[in-house]
């Protein structure tokens, strides 16, 4: 009897640990996931619905992801991408690649050009929009995922189906190009902006 009870306790404990791990994943990723989805479906109400569906798909296969990848959240963003595609399909529209708004470029502008002046930052964002358009698509995608969607390099690598090192290479090249773009030349970190 005692052995059986221990086994039950162990099973209960395991279930509780699993539940807590799942809750932890949700709490850690939901805000970022919501931003990621909202930028691609165009509204928070829609994004909230899509996210709910993403989590259901994710949790239905949770144990398999843990067994396959060791790190379950690895498949979270690929699932989100799939659900976003489905969202647009139902709306009979084509999935938006990455809809970047000017406000979204705040983080990216700050990474590229450090400076305290808010007015200059706003100018930089305007310049960034045109400079980004000239980047190769893969470098631009890496920049957006990393600095606009605020994903980790690992998550960015997973979504782009490349290694973390390749993501680092894309980011480095993209940042170099953006910094040397004529329109951003005048915004040096030393404040030579006149």
């Amino acid at each position: 009897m005692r052995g059986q009870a221990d086994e039950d306790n162990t099973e209960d404990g395991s279930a509780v640990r699993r539940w807590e791990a799942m809750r932890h994943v949700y709490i850690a990723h939901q805000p970022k996931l919501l931003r990621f989805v909202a930028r691609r479906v165009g509204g928070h109400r829609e994004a909230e619905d899509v996210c709910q569906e993403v989590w259901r798909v994710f949790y239905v296969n949770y144990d398999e992801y843990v067994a396959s990848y060791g790190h379950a959240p690895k498949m979270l963003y690929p699932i989100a991408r799939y659900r976003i595609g489905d969202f647009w399909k139902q709306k009979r529209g084509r999935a938006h690649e990455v809809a970047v708004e000017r406000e979204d470029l705040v983080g990216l502008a700050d990474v590229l050009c450090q400076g305290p002046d808010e007015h200059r930052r706003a100018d930089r964002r305007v310049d960034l929009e045109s400079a980004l358009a000239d980047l190769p698509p893969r470098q631009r995608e890496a920049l957006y995922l990393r600095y606009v969607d605020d994903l980790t390099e690992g998550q960015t690598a997973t979504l782009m189906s490349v290694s973390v090192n390749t993501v680092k290479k894309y980011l480095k090249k993209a940042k170099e190009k953006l910094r040397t773009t004529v329109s951003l030349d005048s915004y040096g970190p030393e404040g030579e902006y006149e």
Partner: protein
Amino acid sequence: VNHHDDPRGLLDATERELSDGFEAVMESLKRMSPQEITALKQQADAAELGHDAYALGLELLEQGQTDAAERQLRKAARYHVAGARRILDELTVRGVMHQTADAAAGGVALSASHRSLARGATSTVPGAIFALALTGGISLAPGDGHEILFGRDRGRVHVCVGEDDPHVSRHQGTLTHGDGQWQVRNTGWRPIRINHRLLFRDEEPLPLGTGYTQLFIESPRRQHLLEVYVTDHRDQRPEPRHRETTVRPRVWALTEQERLVLVALGQRYLSHDLHPQPLSWKQTAAQLAGLQPDRGWTQRRVEHIVHAVRRRLSDDGVPGLVRDEVGEPVGNALNHNLLQALLTSTTLVPMDLALIDET
């Protein structure tokens, strides 16, 4: 993502709210039927398949196995991997560019300052084609499969037309040589006007005769011109004929009564209305009755006179004046065509409006 677009404060959720969200998701899962769970698992599989196909497609692309890469990327695109669609588009463009380089081998570029092809073109090869737009053009010898692509995307086509107008398709159309003649095909979304004919997307290609042809891509507020010139076997530029007698338009003989009726019927044409239409029989008869109260003008009489003129001109080769040629419903088409023919031949001229001037 702007926070002001987030009325429910979802982006600033507290840990407690997030925890509640998690519980809600798990609760909804518990309430699902086995079929619904199966559907969710299928979605998970699809997401994973798309993800794997995308990764494999990129790997194959790096190895230079383009065909295999395309297959995987297509599969990924079917599973909504947006990046896959973009890479496929890029591959298509590369493929088109490769094909266009082959197809136009031997072509000679024409600069943007090249004189209008309306003034003719010379080539040592009979049947050569010249295509010219504002941005420049190309000339190409005839040969089965020879192609000239035109459209907005300078990187994809030989002749760039309407580069600043998004209404023009990136690849709007193709000039192709086959069976001894050049043809034009519309591959874009907007029709191409050739003479008085509109050529639509994916319609049978239209043959291009020798000499000069204007192709207009119709945009809502603009028209983009592509000039085409096909040299003939004599390949002569039109010879100057400075001193030759001018060939006058053929003027059709009308009786006084016919002229009066036709001027009344077509007065909107003669007054240069923007979109003129003939008057109705009733309106025409009423106006003529006002002018000549004692001549017994009726709708039927007007109709008979106009019918007689249409029949006479039709017998003399003027197109579009009988029902069989126009097809049903005829509406005003026969009278419209008649009046156009009378105006372009200068049989009727604006000064004729004096005939119905009541002052």
